[in-house]
């Protein structure tokens, strides 16, 4: 297909602001009279609060307000399980519990005030892993709930796993564990809250869910006794998201209450230390998985049991099982599936969404186990994958309707570029190749009742278009991709399209930047709105050029008659004629696009997404068998994206995802001891530097998804879903040792090598 603008490598539209230092991030926001807020966090992971004495803090010059739990309405809780009060009373359940907050005329005075607050604790014994937390004699965290096991319904059953297991020719069983890793957004979290004279709230925010956050904050205002108010969310330039801003946090409600009490804008911005210990990381998992196949290598069943350390309170981490069901039921053709997951309260940190939302954790188990099955059955891992690869048109046991699917092409490309046949099994104990695939939602995800996104589009007298979208740009390029889609549909240049995405007063509703849905859902929303606008344009131009509508083509902002190209008019002039006259009209269009997907039913079955993204990653590694260090020699990332609307930004998503994935696989982990984070800084938490970069070969497979805007599907998350198992599988090929616990550190490899050569 020949497109003008879709498929072009267009630079990100807001890049000029960023390279000149003009982009405004949350810490750059300064409002007149603004106060600085700071939070006092708990000293212990589990303790009773006997007394909080804020008197010294209140007396400090420059302090304008001090809050404790009693300043919030009783029983005010946040989080989808409503178990998290913004300020704690009675008990603290983790070292990131918020106990008190102050705001002052300078950050220094705020910090001094925090240090003047005196808290008396009665230390209680804590539980720091889910297995211990489930024991009869372990302390209960939420006494009003009465149990440490959350009442969550995570259970999926398809077919008859027991029967399939008995009939399988080969069965493998393994346990895999994954660690806490954190987003490490380069800009720390923060917000600025202020109320106008009528008690309407404005929040400068980094949120990825402006419409849902609006709702959360409105509920808060109502709880504070403010009924019928407005909440306006203004998104600043967001310095990294990766899922970290998919939920609202206690600090936001604290800022709101401080602003209400002082009648002044209040800014809370986390220090890097706070960003590490007081934000919510990726859900850690303990996964028991069993898979089987018949003699020909066709998968017969997959049984997965998971245990999730829920931490002290509940955020989206506890819902990752709903996404983990996706690869468990639908990565490769597997007719019988059983999955259960248990979430358990502990005195640890609590988790939320992070790029992949559970998929990386589940895929690590599934794809590592698959290679084990390959070995057990004597079938090459490449062949085993090709035998079971999903195909277009199939319906998976969970009810996913697979439309386009380029999985086979991805697997083949990876094998080819890795020289699979020449290299597999031939690394002489040092080198190895491995691969792993992924499935992810690529056409939105009906997690809520709505998966929709609204767009309003207007064209002015100069032929310039403003697109008001509910979507957000968190650095991934939504602003640019939407501009390309609109420009392509209407026939103007990308420069002539301005995308406004960051003000709820102006932008329509959207459910949020998650599930890699923005290109597909917001893109479609913009496309349909642009189509409506084009229809109006054609009507106007038809009158101006005096030709039928189907004879008109618009290119670069000029409308031509196809049959008589000399008949042309710049769009701007045509619109002015229509508008700047008696009885004139203006040019606007709108569309709310809600994809044709379904909520999962009570059994967690249904077509969650309107399209699914597939991909395969392949890795060649070299292991230093004396030190256990792993070097990645070659990395191939093949992705079925439907259509690459912007190959430049798409590559950026893949490179970024892959490096995060390598960190997840090899070096990143949050080290907690007795409930305290021990490595909450950039020196001891090892995200990768430029020196750790490996060359990544990207393969873009375009399967032209009919439902997607110009054929596109989502790509935001897939880049890091299969990275860990691909690396683990390559390591196995190299040294015959399977590490089932992330991250795969040199110590684990060396220990495993020693055990292999001299088993006890």
């Amino acid at each position, binding site marked *: 297909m020949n497109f003008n603008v879709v498929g072009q490598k267009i630079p990100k539209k807001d890049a000029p602001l960023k390279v000149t230092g003009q*982009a405004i991030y949350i810490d750059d926001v300064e409002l007149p009279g603004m106060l600085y807020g700071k939070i006092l966090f708990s000293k212990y992971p589990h303790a009773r609060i006997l007394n909080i004495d804020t008197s010294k803090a209140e007396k400090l010059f420059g302090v304008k307000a001090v809050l404790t739990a009693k300043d919030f309405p009783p029983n005010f809780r946040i989080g989808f399980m409503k178990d998290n009060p913004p300020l704690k009373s009675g008990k603290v359940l983790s070292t990131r519990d918020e106990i008190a907050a102050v705001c002052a005329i300078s950050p220094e005075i705020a910090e001094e005030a925090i240090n003047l607050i005196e808290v008396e604790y009665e230390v209680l014994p804590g539980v720091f892993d889910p297995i211990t937390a489930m024991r009869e004699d372990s302390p209960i965290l939420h006494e009003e709930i009465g149990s440490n096991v959350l009442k969550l319904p995570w259970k999926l059953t398809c077919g008859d796993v027991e029967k399939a297991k008995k009939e399988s020719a080969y069965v493998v069983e393994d346990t895999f564990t994954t660690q806490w890793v954190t987003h490490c957004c*380069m800009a720390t979290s923060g917000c600025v809250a202020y109320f106008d004279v009528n008690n309407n709230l404005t929040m400068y925010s980094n949120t990825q869910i402006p419409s849902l956050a609006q709702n959360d904050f409105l509920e808060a205002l109502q709880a504070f006794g403010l009924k019928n108010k407005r909440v306006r969310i203004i998104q600043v330039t967001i*310095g990294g998201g990766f899922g970290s801003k998919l939920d609202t946090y206690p600090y936001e409600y604290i800022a709101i209450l401080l602003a209400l009490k002082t009648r002044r804008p209040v800014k809370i911005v986390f220090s890097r230390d706070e960003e590490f210990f007081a934000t919510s990381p990726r859900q850690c998992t303990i996964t028991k998985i069993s898979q089987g196949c018949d003699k020909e290598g066709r998968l017969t069943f997959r049984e997965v049991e998971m245990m999730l350390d829920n931490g002290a309170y509940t955020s989206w981490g506890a819902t990752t099982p709903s996404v983990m069901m996706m690869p468990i039921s639908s990565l490769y053709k597997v007719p019988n599936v059983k999955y259960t997951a248990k979430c358990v309260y502990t005195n640890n940190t609590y988790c939320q969404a992070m790029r992949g939302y559970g998929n990386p954790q589940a895929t690590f188990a599934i794809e590592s186990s698959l290679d084990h099955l390959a070995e057990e059955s004597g079938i090459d891992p490449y062949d085993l994958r090709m035998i079971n690869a999903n195909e277009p048109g199939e319906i998976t046991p969970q009810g996913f309707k697979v439309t386009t699917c380029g999985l086979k092409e991805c697997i083949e490309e990876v094998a080819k570029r890795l020289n699979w046949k020449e290299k597999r099994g031939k690394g002489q104990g040092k080198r190895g190749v491995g691969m792993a695939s992924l499935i992810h939602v690529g056409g939105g995800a009906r997690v809520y009742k709505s998966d929709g996104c609204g767009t309003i589009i207007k064209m002015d007298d100069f032929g310039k278009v403003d697109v008001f979208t509910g979507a957000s740009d968190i650095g991934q390029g939504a602003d640019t991709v939407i501009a390309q889609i609109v420009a392509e549909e209407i026939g103007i240049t990308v420069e002539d399209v301005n995308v406004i995405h960051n003000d709820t007063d102006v932008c329509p509703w959207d459910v949020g930047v998650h599930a890699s849905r923005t290109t597909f859902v917001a893109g479609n929303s913009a496309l349909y709105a642009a189509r409506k606008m084009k229809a109006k344009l054609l009507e106007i131009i038809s009158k101006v050029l005096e030709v039928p509508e189907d004879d008109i083509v618009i290119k670069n902002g000029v409308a031509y008659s196809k049959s008589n190209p000399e008949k042309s008019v710049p769009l701007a002039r045509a619109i002015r004629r229509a508008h700047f006259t008696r009885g004139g009209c203006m040019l606007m269009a709108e569309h709310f696009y809600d994809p044709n997907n379904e909520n999962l039913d009570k059994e967690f079955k249904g077509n969650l997404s309107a399209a699914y993204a597939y991909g395969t990653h392949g890795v060649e590694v070299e292991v230093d068998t004396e030190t256990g260090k792993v070097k990645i020699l070659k990395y191939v990332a093949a992705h079925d994206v439907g259509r690459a609307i912007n190959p430049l930004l798409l*590559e950026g998503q893949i490179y970024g995802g892959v490096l995060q994935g390598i960190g997840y696989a090899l070096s990143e982990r949050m080290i907690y001891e007795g409930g305290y984070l021990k490595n909450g800084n950039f020196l001891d938490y090892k995200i990768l530097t430029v020196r750790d970069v490996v060359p990544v070969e990207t393969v873009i497979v375009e399967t032209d998804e009919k439902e997607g805007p110009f054929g596109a599907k989502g790509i935001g998350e897939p880049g890091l879903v299969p990275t860990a198992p691909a690396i683990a599988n390559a390591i196995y090929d190299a040294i015959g040792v399977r590490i089932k616990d992330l991250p795969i550190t040199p110590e684990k490899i060396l220990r495993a090598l020693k055990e292999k050569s001299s088993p006890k």
Partner: protein
Amino acid sequence: MKKILRFNLNGEEIEVEVEPHWTLLYLLREVLKLKGTKEGCGYGECGACTVVIDGKAVNSCLYPVMEVQGKKVITIEGISKPDGDLHPLQRAFIEEGAVQCGFCTPGMIMSAYALLEEKKDPDLEDIKEAIEGNLCRCTGYIKIIDAINVAKRRMG
């Protein structure tokens, strides 16, 4: 006790009253209101606060303000031309897709700026050495290296 600091900032001689315990980053952002230089960690571990002093890239979050006396400081606000024309690095970062969330970008560009001011034809090793102290979570660094190479060729 406040002291008078005189130094050259982005080509202009300036004089400003400072408290001796301030860092250069604090002076730039909070006093001079130049918000382009970012604070990523405050401990010299991420490079977001990188500025160039007498030709050398430094972490301004650890640079005592009194040491700036008499020196030449360049920040991200100071590398484009007076008429607004972008520096080749800025242009290359835009064109090569080296900018996603953009928070690391000013610091990253300043490290690359210091490199290209010193070496006309840095190789891959030199480039990695110059930016190994600048963390980026979004891009995976590959397009950043591309952009620096493009800028280098255009400037050469």
